[in-house]
C-alpha cells in the first residue's frame, strides 16, 4: 500500500481553503439518492456565486453538471439559439432543455432570481460517486444591462477536489455575437427593453469576450446605460466546495 498521490495539482486561480475537515460533517443537505441512502454512493458540492460588477444584475443562472462532450459555448463559435436566448434575454428554458437532451449531461440546475451585485447566491448539487472522476460544471448567466453579454465557466473540472476543499474561479464577460451592442433602452432587458430577438446583427457573429459598455455618460448618446453600468473583468466569482 503506497500513498496514493503526493502530487497536488493546482488549477489556475485555485485556492486551497481547507485541507482538514471532518468527514461527512453536517454540511449541505444532500437530498438526491437513487438506490440507497449510503453516503458512500454520492459526492456533493456547494457553489457560491458573487456578482463582482457595480450594476449588472445577472439573470437566472443555468448550471450544467456533465461529463466531457457537452459544450454550452466556445469563443470563436457561433452561439446556439439556446445561448442566444440566455445572453439576450436571460431566458433559461431552451438552454435547460437542450442540456437535458444531451447524453453527456448528468443534471441541470436553474438558479432563479439571478445574482444581484452585492448579494451572493449559493446552491448545491449531488452526483454519483462513480461519476466523480469525470465531473465537469458549466455555468452561464446574462449581464442584464447589456445587449447580449453573458458570463460563466465552460467545462470546469471538479475531479481534483477532495472533501472540504474549495476551488475559486473568476470569470470574464463574453459577448454572444448575436445582437449589436446598441445599448438602447429598447434592446437592453435590464432597462425594460426587448430580450431575445431572432435577428442577428452583431458586428462579430461568434462568441468573443465583451468589450464593455460605453454608456451615455461616455458620449454614446443613444445608450440607455449610465456610467454605473460599466464593468471590467472579472465579473463573477464562483467558489465550488466539495462537501461530501
Amino acid at each position, binding site marked *: 500500500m503506497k500513498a496514493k*498521490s*503526493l*502530487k497536488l495539482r493546482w488549477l*489556475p486561480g485555485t485556492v486551497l481553503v481547507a485541507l482538514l475537515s471532518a468527514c461527512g460533517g453536517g454540511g449541505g443537505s444532500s437530498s438526491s439518492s437513487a438506490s440507497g441512502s449510503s453516503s458512500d454512493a454520492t459526492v456533493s458540492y456547494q457553489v457560491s456565486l458573487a456578482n463582482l460588477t457595480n450594476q449588472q444584475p445577472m439573470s437566472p443562472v443555468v448550471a450544467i453538471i456533465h461529463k466531457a462532450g457537452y459544450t454550452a459555448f466556445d*469563443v*470563436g*463559435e457561433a452561439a446556439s439559439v439556446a445561448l442566444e436566448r440566455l445572453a439576450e434575454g436571460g431566458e433559461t428554458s431552451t438552454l435547460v432543455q437542450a442540456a437535458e437532451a444531451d447524453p453527456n449531461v448528468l443534471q441541470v440546475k436553474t438558479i432563479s432570481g439571478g445574482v444581484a451585485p452585492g448579494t451572493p447566491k449559493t446552491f448545491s448539487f449531488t452526483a454519483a460517486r462513480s461519476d466523480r472522476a469525470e465531473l465537469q460544471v458549466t455555468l452561464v448567466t446574462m449581464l442584464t444591462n447589456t445587449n447580449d453579454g453573458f458570463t460563466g465557466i465552460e467545462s470546469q473540472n471538479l475531479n481534483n477536489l477532495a472533501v472540504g476543499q474549495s476551488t475559486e474561479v473568476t470569470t*470574464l*464577460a463574453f*459577448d454572444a*455575437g448575436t445582437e*449589436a*451592442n*446598441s*445599448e438602447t433602452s429598447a434592446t437592453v432587458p435590464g432597462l425594460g427593453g426587448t430580450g431575445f430577438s431572432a435577428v442577428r446583427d452583431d*458586428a*462579430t457573429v*461568434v*462568441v*468573443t*469576450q*465583451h*468589450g*464593455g459598455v*460605453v454608456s451615455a455618460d*461616455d*458620449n*454614446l*448618446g*443613444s445608450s440607455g446605460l449610465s456610467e454605473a453600468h460599466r464593468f*471590467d*473583468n472579472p465579473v463573477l466569482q464562483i467558489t465550488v466546495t466539495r462537501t461530501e
Partner: protein
Amino acid sequence: MKSTISKAALAVLGCSWVVSAQAVDFDVKVTNLTHGMYLSPVLVATHPAASSVYSLGSAASNNMKAMAEGGDSSGLQTELIGAGSDTPQILNGTVNNKIPPGGDAEQLGLSSSPGNDRITVVTKLMPTNDGFAALNAIILPTEPGRYVYKMDAFDAGSEANDELMVVGGNTVGVQGIEPDPDITTTGTGGTGASGSDNNATIHTHRGVLGDSNSTGGSSDLDNTIHRWLNPVARVIITVN
C-alpha cells in the same frame, strides 16, 4: 511518480538549469478574444532567457515600434535569431493572414533547442495606433501538458492614439491607423481622439475610445465595436 515529484519540487525552487537543458516539442494556438480587433500575424519564438524584445516601463526599440505601429515582425525576427533563438514562427490567421475577432491560429510540431527555455509571443492589435499583445520571454513549460496563458494589451508609447485612418499609417513614424479592406467597421473624418502619450514607455494600453459617428467625431473607431477589456488573446501551449 518519484521523478514527477522531484521535478515539480525543483521547479518550485527555481532551478532553471534543470529545465533549460532539454529540448521541448510543443504546439502553440493563439485565440483572439476581442469583439472588434484583428491580430496581425503572430510572432512566436523560443530563445535564451537574456534576449527579451521589450521591457515594460522602457521605451520601445525600433523593432518593437515596427511591430506595434505596423504589425511588421521582421526586425524582431532578425533580433531574436541574432540572440540565439530557434527559427521564429509566424502564425497566420484566416483573413489575409490576420486573426479576426474570435478566430485563432495554430502551429503544431514546434521544437525548442536546449538552452532556449523562454518563449515570446507578439502580435499587433488592429486597428490601433501602437497597441500590441504579448507574452514576454516567459518560461517555456517542459512537462507534457496543456498550458493556458492570457495576453493583455500594451501600448508601445511611441505614437499618439489619435485613432484616425490614414493611408500609410501602418508605417513607423507615420501618425495614424492604416485603413484596411478586411476591417470594414471603421469610419472616417475624425478629428483625433488623443494627443501624444503621456507615458512614452511601453505601458498597459488604456483601451480605445471610439465614437458613434462613422464620418466625423473624434475617432474613426466605433465605440460599440472596437473597445476591449483585458485579456485580449489566449495562448495555449501544449507540450508533447
